[in-house]
């Protein structure tokens, strides 16, 4: 098992903030909007550096989405920031018509996604956003795993032409991917080559998958671990290549099972290479208040559960 070392816990939303500032420095057409959550989204540095390119939308996400679509007409590249719950479900029709169907170059920056938002509870813990966004034609869906990767993803989506949903989170988590990495949209990242099982993970659960992989190695199970940071377009080639080698799969994500990354991988496999699969995710229930670690444990989204799923799926081979 390849060794991964965290350089210290950091939040992915701060990676977005740093990436946004850098994207703004690289391209003067990058502009930003926020729905009264500048601090939460870590957009302060961009606001301070480029006050004339930042537009406070107030608590009015529908308008923010429409304004961003309009701002692309004439060449601006707007990043719109709010919590994932309000960035997607609340404004689905605005995204659908003014952004996705109209194919506008809007970047939806969605923080505080999933259970690890923590104590605020289920109203704010959206677990359906990946599904909502991946169903929209033209929409790219990205869920990076740590600070460094979120920063790199932010810079990459500014350079990509078209609508993007960029999902990240609130808690401080291990920061283990390379600093100043190049982020390739749509490319699955091999974290550990293995022979017995493939673990596909996205977002915060990539680190959990690595932790699981280390423990599995101690038990003599050689897990291949792949980071699916781009859920749409899905890297079908890399996924099929891996599964044809290992012949069983575990997926892990901080999202509802319905409509998530695992759902996309299961669909790909059932059509092309039917394989035993176990899926880690939230099973058709809302979240609740708690600390991120408590919630990941209660809803079965940590390394321990990934290990159990691996043992179960290997037995099904």
């Amino acid at each position: 098992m390849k060794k991964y070392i965290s350089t210290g816990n950091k939040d992915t939303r701060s990676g977005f903030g740093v990436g946004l500032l850098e994207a703004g420095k690289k391209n003067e057409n990058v502009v930003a909007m926020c729905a009264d959550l500048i601090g939460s989204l870590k957009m302060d540095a961009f606001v301070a550096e480029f006050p004339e390119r930042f537009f406070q939308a107030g608590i009015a996400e529908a308008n923010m989405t429409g304004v961003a679509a309009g701002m692309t007409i004439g060449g601006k590249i707007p990043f719109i920031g709010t919590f994932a719950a309000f960035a997607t479900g609340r404004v689905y029709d605005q995204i659908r018509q003014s952004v996705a169907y109209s194919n506008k170059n809007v970047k939806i920056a969605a923080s505080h996604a999933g259970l690890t938002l923590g104590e605020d509870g289920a109203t704010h813990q959206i677990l359906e956003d990946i599904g909502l966004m991946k169903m929209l034609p033209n929409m790219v869906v990205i869920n990076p795993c740590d600070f460094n990767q979120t920063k790199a993803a932010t810079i990459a989506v500014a350079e990509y032409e078209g609508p993007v949903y960029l999902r990240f989170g609130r808690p401080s988590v291990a920061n283990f991917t390379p600093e100043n990495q190049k982020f390739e949209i749509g490319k699955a990242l091999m974290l550990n080559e293995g022979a017995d099982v493939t673990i596909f993970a996205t977002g915060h659960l990539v680190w959990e998958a690595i932790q699981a992989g280390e423990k599995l190695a101690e038990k003599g199970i050689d897990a291949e671990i792949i980071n699916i940071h781009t859920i749409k377009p899905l890297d079908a080639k890399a996924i099929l290549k891996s599964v044809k080698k290992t012949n069983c799969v575990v997926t892990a994500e901080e999202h509802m099972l319905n409509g998530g990354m695992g759902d996309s991988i299961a669909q790909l496999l059932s059509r092309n290479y039917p394989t035993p699969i176990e899926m880690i995710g939230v099973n058709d229930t809302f979240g609740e208040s708690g600390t991120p670690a408590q919630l990941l444990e209660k809803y079965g989204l940590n390394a321990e559960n990934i290990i159990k799923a691996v043992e179960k799926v290997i037995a099904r081979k």
Partner: protein
Amino acid sequence: MADIKNLENIASQVRRDIVRMVHEKNSGHPGGSLGCADFMTAMYFEVLKKDSKNFTIDGKNEDLFFLSNGHISPVFYSVLARSGYFPVEELKTFRALNTRLQGHPTTAEDLPGIRIASGSLGQGLSVAAGAALTKKLNGENTTVYSLHGDGELEEGQIWEAAMFANARKIDNLIATIDYNKVQIDGTTEDVLDLGNLRTKWEAFGWIVLEMQGNNMADVIRGLAEAKLKTGNGKPVVILMHTEMGAGVDFMMGTHKWHGVAPNDEQLKDALSQLEETLGDY
């Protein structure tokens, strides 16, 4: 000076296009289209600074127009075709399979003249405000226009956009409201009373003007006045008094022709009231 008679002639042909398109497919929205025919003719044949032969989404250094109430696509398609964005014959394909003239306007089919999809109501004012902001950031001295149904003002997003445009001092934006006081289910008063629109928009910080939307001379006057009011730190809205179905007597004075197509006999009756000035497609 605008040639009012010429614009009225064009509007007559636009109205013929509308009823013929909707009749042909037995589908579409003639009422609001007819009511806005004078305004749309004035926009595309007199007011907008545009380049219809070299259309780009960005429309750099051009005025931009956004149709927020996308269901009145027949009038939009007619003025776009008649002002040179695409061949007039293409109006035949309205609402047909594989057409660029979708039921509601879209950028997905690359039809010149369309810069955003509309149909789901209430979104166009935000889009227009955003495009106007970009024009300002790009240092352009151009104007962004939008058109909305009055029933559309029932959507909350319109008022979010109204607040935003005033707060951000978007003063290169002129929104027009098709104030015909009817919507699908009946009068706006019965469906969801809009109250006093003038005081509402004024309370949101907008400069409010009014004009008679089915009087070409007054439309030209009103749009000129609106243009003069731009650049003063506030967005401008025109309450445009119109009659749904204007120009076809049996379609006026009722909400029943909002989304209903005329039959063969009704088409004949309608066309007898509208002079063919530019040649039917």
